[in-house]
């Protein structure tokens, strides 16, 4: 850089920036499906995972589908609006986990059922004061996020 004239330095930098953008775009393009953290129920049903493959599934816990078993086992359905996959899980759930809330589970398919070994909660960025939500619910105009 030191020995170059200013005009040449600008040219070198422009070339560098162009190469970087191109490299990033190519990597991003080739990995566009691999970078997703989880699969949606529609994706799981349309492109079934290999037998025994461990993957993550994510979506909303379908309202009315949550059944807490006798021990620590819970079953529920995860949905993305278009498709629904039944899930079974044994273990401790995060506090946020509930019907109508987002979740991401790690595990594998056994037949039609997704057997989860780990469940994470996913939430959106709408932080609302508790009083406001309670008031909205009282008036019956509250809509859960994502619904």
């Amino acid at each position: 850089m030191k020995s170059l004239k200013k005009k040449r330095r600008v040219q070198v930098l422009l070339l560098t920036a162009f190469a970087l953008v191109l490299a990033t775009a190519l990597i991003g393009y080739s990995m566009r499906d691999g970078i997703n953290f989880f699969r949606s129920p529609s994706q799981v049903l349309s492109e079934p995972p290999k037998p025994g493959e461990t993957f993550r599934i994510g979506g909303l816990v379908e309202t009315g589908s949550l059944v807490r078993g006798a021990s620590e086992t819970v079953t529920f359905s995860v949905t993305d609006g278009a498709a629904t996959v039944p899930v079974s899980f044994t273990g401790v759930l995060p506090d946020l986990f509930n019907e109508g809330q987002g979740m991401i589970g790690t595990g594998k398919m056994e037949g039609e059922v997704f057997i989860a070994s780990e469940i994470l909660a996913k939430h959106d960025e709408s932080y609302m004061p508790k009083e406001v939500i309670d008031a909205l619910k009282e008036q019956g105009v509250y809509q859960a996020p994502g619904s």
Partner: protein
Amino acid sequence: MSIWEYANPKKFMQTSAWALPWFTGLAVVTLLTGLIWGFFFTPEAANFGTTVKIIYIHVPSAMMAINVWAMMLVTSLIWLIRRHHVSALAAKAAAPIGLVMTLIALFTGAIWGQPMWGTWWEWDPRLTSFLILGLFYLGYLALWAAIDNPDTAADLTGVLCLVGSVFALLSRYAVNFWNQGLHQAASLSVDAEENVSDVYWYPLLLCMAGFVLLFIVLVLIRTRTEVRSRRLQALEARERLA
């Protein structure tokens, strides 16, 4: 009057000496107001309880971690093209601050993730690109320390800064590119519809402004130190020759 006058070390030292107390006062007032408002005078959030108050540290520090790198990119480019030494020194001075901001954001993010998501860490696109940004800060500092010739060091770190910008951009926009991730979308952005309730939003804005001001204060102090240490080296070199 051109903006490039401030690239003159003497002019820079004069102006920054005058500006520092003002920025310091402003930063202290803004940050204290924002944090006290946010921590003590906001209601509990539905589902999240008092934990939501982490956003007053997490969001500003994550924003700064990315924006500090953007500032380093601009000053590095100015150095590479126009060869103003103060500009290179400002980039060098900003890096440790950006690293600390990255660490704060990672740490507070983990404290949020454990109770809310059920995990301290996941290899989610946004979290991962942010971690890589932190590693780039480390590499940037190491490269400055590894090269003796200051001009060569400024050149090479400038190029490294250019490369690292990819990850600064990625961690900012990862949630938009790959929407099937664990991390929620940005709490605030200029172009999106507002999601955060106003009671949390106003103190958050203050905290973000406070973090920006704090960064300006720190980077001015550190750049002044770098300029002085450069002068000292020049004096010592002259002494040895005499």
